[in-house]
């Protein structure tokens, strides 16, 4: 990777800010390797927001960590993650560290554990900014911090407070401010509002939405809450057992889901209009030894004979909408699994 220390120029082209090809993320377990993410392709355009949804254990968090190459020791990554045409997989940790923050930022669920309780909020910003841009003076850095915090609704009079003096929602705002202060091209937010109350959640989602509209930041939003996806995302990728089973524009997928799993997931979601409960029978498979063929077949209400033999691939099922299900022609393009 080139050693461009200067502020990275925004990609001017219409090309995707993030491009993922055949990404696999795996862990060693006592029973053998476990591929939590098992071959994923994904693209995110500037200013686009893509939701990753699925039940816990579907691999969405591992995918999020794989995107920023932030995995526990011993985890394996295969495939390619390109951020503005630069490969992240296999890059040295030093340059990765620089890219994180400048080009790609992560927002986590629990903000308090990520802030140093003994450090003023402003100090967090000054350190962050000056680590990436050593030529920025302390005063300028404070200035940038104040602007970023004000954008998040934190009063400029409070920049010198300590993290514990803020409420949970404020801390998450601080974390987001810290994430965007270097103007990254992509934000990966992993359940950013799960610990928060609905009203604060809504406030935070509004902020993320504004960022993406005004600053053209790409957003990957990982969540188990379909409501959040419906309200904040342009496209949604539904994950099951380490793979994307359906992907497409939010309006299409919510109004006309094609994959039986997506249908089940939407049906089991309780909304204000729910009058009857629906469930998906069974449990997700053990990924150390996943079932052959379609991984959803054992739970699928529309299962067919060849579903347990043929591994479906994503195929076009509607405008910009793709699903990996053998109900649709073209999904059996893959080789028959032994």
């Amino acid at each position, binding site marked *: 990777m080139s050693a461009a220390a200067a502020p990275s120029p925004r990609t001017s082209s219409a090309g995707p800010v993030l491009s993922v090809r055949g990404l696999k993320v795996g862990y060693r*377990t006592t029973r053998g390797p476990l591929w939590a993410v098992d071959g994923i392709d994904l693209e995110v355009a500037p200013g686009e927001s893509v939701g990753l949804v699925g039940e816990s254990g579907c691999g969405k968090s591992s995918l999020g960590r794989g995107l920023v190459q932030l995995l*526990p020791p011993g985890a394996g990554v295969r495939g390619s993650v390109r951020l503005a045409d630069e490969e992240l997989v296999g890059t040295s940790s030093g340059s990765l*560290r*620089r890219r994180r*923050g400048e080009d790609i930022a992560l927002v986590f669920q629990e903000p308090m*554990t990520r802030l140093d309780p003994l450090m003023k909020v402003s100090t967090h910003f000054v350190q962050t900014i000056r*680590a990436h841009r050593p030529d920025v003076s302390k005063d300028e850095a404070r200035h940038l911090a104040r602007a970023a915090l004000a954008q998040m609704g934190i009063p400029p009079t409070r920049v010198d407070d300590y993290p514990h003096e803020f409420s949970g929602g404020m801390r998450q705002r601080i974390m987001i401010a810290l994430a965007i202060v270097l103007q990254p091209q992509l934000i990966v937010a992993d359940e950013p509002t799960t610990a928060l109350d609905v009203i604060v959640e809504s406030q935070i989602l509004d902020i993320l939405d504004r960022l993406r509209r005004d600053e053209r930041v790409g957003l990957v939003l990982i969540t188990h809450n379909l409501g959040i996806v419906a309200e904040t995302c342009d496209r949604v990728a539904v994950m099951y057992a380490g793979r994307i089973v359906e992907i497409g524009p939010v309006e299409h997928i919510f109004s006309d889901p094609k994959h039986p799993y997506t249908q089940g997931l939407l049906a089991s979601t309780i909304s204000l209009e729910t009058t009857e409960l629906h469930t998906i029978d069974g449990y997700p*498979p053990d990924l150390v030894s996943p079932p052959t063929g379609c991984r959803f077949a054992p739970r699928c209400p529309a299962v067919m004979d060849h579903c347990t033999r043929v591994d479906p691939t994503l195929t076009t099922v509607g405008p910009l909408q793709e699903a990996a299900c053998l109900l649709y022609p073209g999904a059996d393009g893959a080789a028959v699994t032994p």
Partner: protein
Amino acid sequence: MPSPLRLRLQHAVRPFRSASRTARVLVTVGLLITIVFGVAAFLAPTFYRYDGEQYRVEQPDGSFEQLPRLAPPSAEHPLGTTRDRYDVLARIIDGGRLALAVVLFSTLIAMLIGVPLGLLSGYRGGKLDRVLVTVMDAVYVFPPLLLAIIVAFLLQAYFAPGVPSAAAAVGVVYIPQYFRVVRNHTLSVKQEPYVEAARSLGAKERTVISRYVLFNVIQSVPVIFTLNAADAVLTLASLGFLGYGVQPPTPEWGYDISQAIIDITSGVWWTALWPGVAIVTLVTALTLVGEGLNDVINPLLRARGAAGAKLDAAADGEDLGEPANVDPLSPGTEDGSGPGLAGRGFRS
């Protein structure tokens, strides 16, 4: 169907089976050495020809022949003899028996007093807790050896010198350790929803403590037990060395070393070396077990706390994203100086 006892045992050894290899090796090696000591101490007297207090051998004609003084190691006396004509090996064997017995008694005494007090203090809280904590802290900050000497002195003056007194003297030192660990652990277990659940079911306080709290705090006791045992061997030897242990000529490693010190200047090394080796080996073995158990049990304690949900979910395949044995990701561990990152793990 397996019996309840077997189930319980299986449940108890489960953490051991899922522990890291290092921990298992530590525990196994330590236990093996300790067992060798135990076997030697309790079985060797049946076939070794001398005993620890023996300085002469009865001849077939009824007369006594004294053992040699300060004889170097030989086939007859594998580790030599002492100034007082005792066989060193025999004294080490008998000293080992004493050490193990005292250690067992003393830690048992400490445990039997410390654990219930800790439980009660932690669960009840309030004034009782404050008083007990103060008393225990006072005992704890007292220099342990000095405390043991005082207790030993008192017991020997008012009761009888001998093993029970020595054991009690050593045991008193450890009561605060059990108390503190159990009390602190009780304080955290008390907050667990399952304890509130027990109350909501209408369980009496006694039942709550014995069935819901005790079983969950007792896990940390084996660790203290083994670590204390190691320490107790040293304390006993120190008492013996200073002359406050069991009454001579009862074989005792510390006492033997103190008697052997003058030999060293005259080039007699075996009388001091072997008891020393015995102390070091047994202490090391017990420490290995303790450290190993600590590794086995502590991840479990951690898992039962904050990360409990995550680990449990992983166990049933619901949260395969982060396998159980991987710490919840803190980017800071890998990326401590990556300040651009939104989620820096400053704490790591």
